[in-house]
């Protein structure tokens, strides 16, 4: 009995091996072997525009029969650690989404597939948003495909503003604070009510104050980076953040805007306004997690500058899609990206996801939609992180989160916190690129 079954097993194994050998010998190994394309997207897509992912997958599967698509959603906090580990383990995905501040290091390390020669095969490649395209370009070569851009604006409760006697949306930072104080007066007795929900580590919003006063994170001079968050202008901005947050926010001082998701906190009613991305508006109305009954009560306006009539510069965030060099299904991966970033899908991203699509040809979509106009307007004045290969290490070392947490909790003086952060940034950006 035993001997016979071993014989059968051996025969089966031999058949299997020869079958594999035959298929390996056929012309296109890419297609024969690829049963699954693994895609890593950030959970913004899951929360904001999941339908776009589903319809892309359907279209992709219709075109490539027998190929499965596995979309795995990642969180911003640890997706790079996971990606590095996957690279080392040889299990990296075929398509991976990067934040536009994260790409430089991976391009410099030659871990992303060079797409320069086939740039034209991607939809709208001649009209890609300049800011995103440059985040995909390293030493003149293209390593990723722009996905979307996002600008932040103040998302607020129109009904609460009205009830508190705020007649029009603030046109200057001073007016913004006055409006907030009115809200605090009206609703502040509720425990944990915030006129402006501003968690202590929210550096994207915090640095807008720095740039509004003319400060910046770092500058490149004589071949060396230098952190400049301790400049007089930057300090003015940081002091202003501290004042505004102290007066208007009762948010947790030791968490960021995504833990818990600020849009969901907003939807629970004890928040007058928060500084958020376009997609966070519909997310606050989510049937399961948010509160759909607020639909008519929400509005948005660009965060006003300390100079009356101007807007505060907003962080021009965004995402790109890349194919790691380790992918065994590169041509399939490219094709998935092509479908995902087609004009039709980008239209969905703009209208449903409330994001700025990757091509300027769709820009008019945003300007016409009242729900998107505030974000489109805000994006006209923007700031971006230093484009240094080591920049992502500054983010990974949490330098800026620590800076704002230290300032807002009062653990360090503004000057001391700024000096510490600045020194750290100088040190990290000048490290040899590894």
């Amino acid at each position: 009995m035993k001997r016979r079954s071993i014989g059968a097993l051996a025969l089966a194994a031999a058949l299997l091996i020869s079958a594999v050998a035959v298929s390996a010998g056929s012309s296109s190994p890419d297609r024969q072997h690829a049963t699954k394309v693994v895609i890593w997207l950030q959970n913004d897509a899951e929360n904001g525009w999941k339908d776009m992912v589903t319809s892309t997958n359907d279209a992709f599967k219709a075109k490539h029969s027998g190929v499965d698509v596995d979309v795995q959603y990642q969180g911003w906090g640890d997706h790079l650690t996971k990606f590095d580990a996957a690279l080392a383990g040889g299990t990296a995905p075929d398509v991976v989404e990067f934040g536009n501040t994260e790409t430089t290091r991976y391009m410099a390390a030659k871990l992303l597939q060079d797409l320069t020669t086939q740039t034209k095969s991607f939809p709208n490649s001649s009209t890609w948003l300049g800011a995103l395209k440059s985040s995909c370009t390293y030493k003149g070569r293209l390593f990723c495909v722009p996905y979307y851009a996002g600008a932040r604006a103040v998302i607020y409760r129109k009904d609460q503003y009205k009830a508190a006697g705020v007649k029009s949306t603030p046109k200057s930072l001073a007016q913004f604070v006055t409006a907030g104080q009115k809200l605090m007066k009206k609703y502040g007795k509720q425990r944990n009510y915030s006129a402006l929900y501003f968690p202590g580590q929210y550096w994207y919003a915090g640095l807008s104050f720095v740039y509004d006063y003319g400060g910046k994170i770092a500058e490149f001079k004589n071949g060396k980076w230098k952190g400049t968050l301790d400049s007089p202008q930057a300090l003015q901005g940081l002091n202003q953040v501290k004042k505004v947050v102290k007066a208007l926010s009762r948010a947790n001082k030791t968490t960021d805007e995504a833990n818990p998701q600020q849009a969901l906190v907003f939807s629970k009613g004890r928040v007058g306004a928060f500084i958020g991305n376009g997609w966070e508006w519909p997310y606050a109305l989510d049937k399961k997690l948010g509160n759909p009954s607020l639909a008519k009560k929400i509005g948005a306006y660009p965060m006003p500058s300390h100079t009356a009539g101007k807007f505060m510069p907003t962080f021009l965030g965004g995402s790109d899609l890349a194919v790691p060099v380790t992918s065994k299904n590169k041509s399939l991966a490219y094709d998935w990206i092509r479908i995902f970033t087609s004009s039709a899908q980008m239209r969905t991203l703009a209208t449903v996801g409330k994001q700025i699509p990757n091509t300027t040809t769709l820009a008019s979509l945003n300007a016409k939609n009242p729900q998107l106009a505030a974000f489109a307007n805000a994006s006209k004045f923007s700031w971006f992180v230093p484009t240094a290969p080591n920049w992502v290490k500054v983010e990974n070392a949490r330098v800026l989160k620590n800076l704002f947490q230290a300032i807002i909790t009062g653990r360090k003086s503004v000057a001391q916190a700024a000096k510490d952060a600045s020194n750290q940034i100088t040190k990290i950006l000048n490290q040899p690129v590894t």
Partner: protein
Amino acid sequence: MSQAPGGEAGFPAMTATAAGSVRRRRRSLGGSVFRALSPYLLLAPAAIVVIAVLGYPLYLLTRLSFEQFGLAELITRKGNWIGADNYTRVFRDHQFWTVLLRTFVFTVVTVGLTMIFGTLIALLLSRLGRFVRLLLISGLVLVWATPVLVAVNIFRWMVDYEFGVLNWTLAKLGFDSFLNKDWFANPTTGFAVITAIVVWGAIPFVAITIYAGLSQVPAELVEAAEIDGARRWQIFKDITFPVLLPIFVILTSLSIIWDFQVFNQVWLARGSEPEEDYWLMSVYSFIEAFKLGEYGFGAAIAVVMVFAMFFATFVYLRQMVQMGETR
């Protein structure tokens, strides 16, 4: 089937009692060689497993600590040998010394608290009635069985600044300043919470082990001391403690080893992104290696950590042994 032991002919020592013929062979020359070798043969499987799962990774870690190994090397899988550069960088990094000192203080505090509370609970156990004792032991075992992830989440909820039961209770008791207290805003209170989680999880093992050891303390000695008018504390100091010294030594050194490398509690309590103020050695090593992609540097920190722990345990053990000898 009855001859099954014959299958272990390679280990005559094991089957020696089975048959007289084997016993005779043991007296021969070949038998004595076998006898000399058999302990090693018996140990070999375990040794091989230990070397495979512990020794080899340790070798890789040490080699990595002498290499420049970054993102690009993840793909090429080949680091560049740079000698002791990573180590000089570690020792020049002032952050390293801060973290090392913090880890030492953290270890001393957590081990101290664990041992004190563990001993007190063990002494309590030995004086309790059967029912209450069983109740307390079941409680301890439950704590022991709670996974770290669950424990940390429970504590995080309890100290949550907005909805936490701790702030709520304190505010109800009249301490209004605790209404929106963020325990993690200040590393001192933050570490108090983390220490509580670690000590809470470590107490059951210590308490139950010491309680078991207490049964070794001769009742006559204690009785005699009581008749002589010794106080509780004197009895503990002069009778119980010396008898239990070996157990204390083992428990404390185990606790040092565990608490020196605490990682999960810090990592989870700070939402997978601990601030610099919360870095212990293990966290520091992990962040350098896996968050900043400095795998070689992170490995060097890990190796230094192994030696630091070795040193701490050694010094402590020597002191304890000396203390035992002078008695």
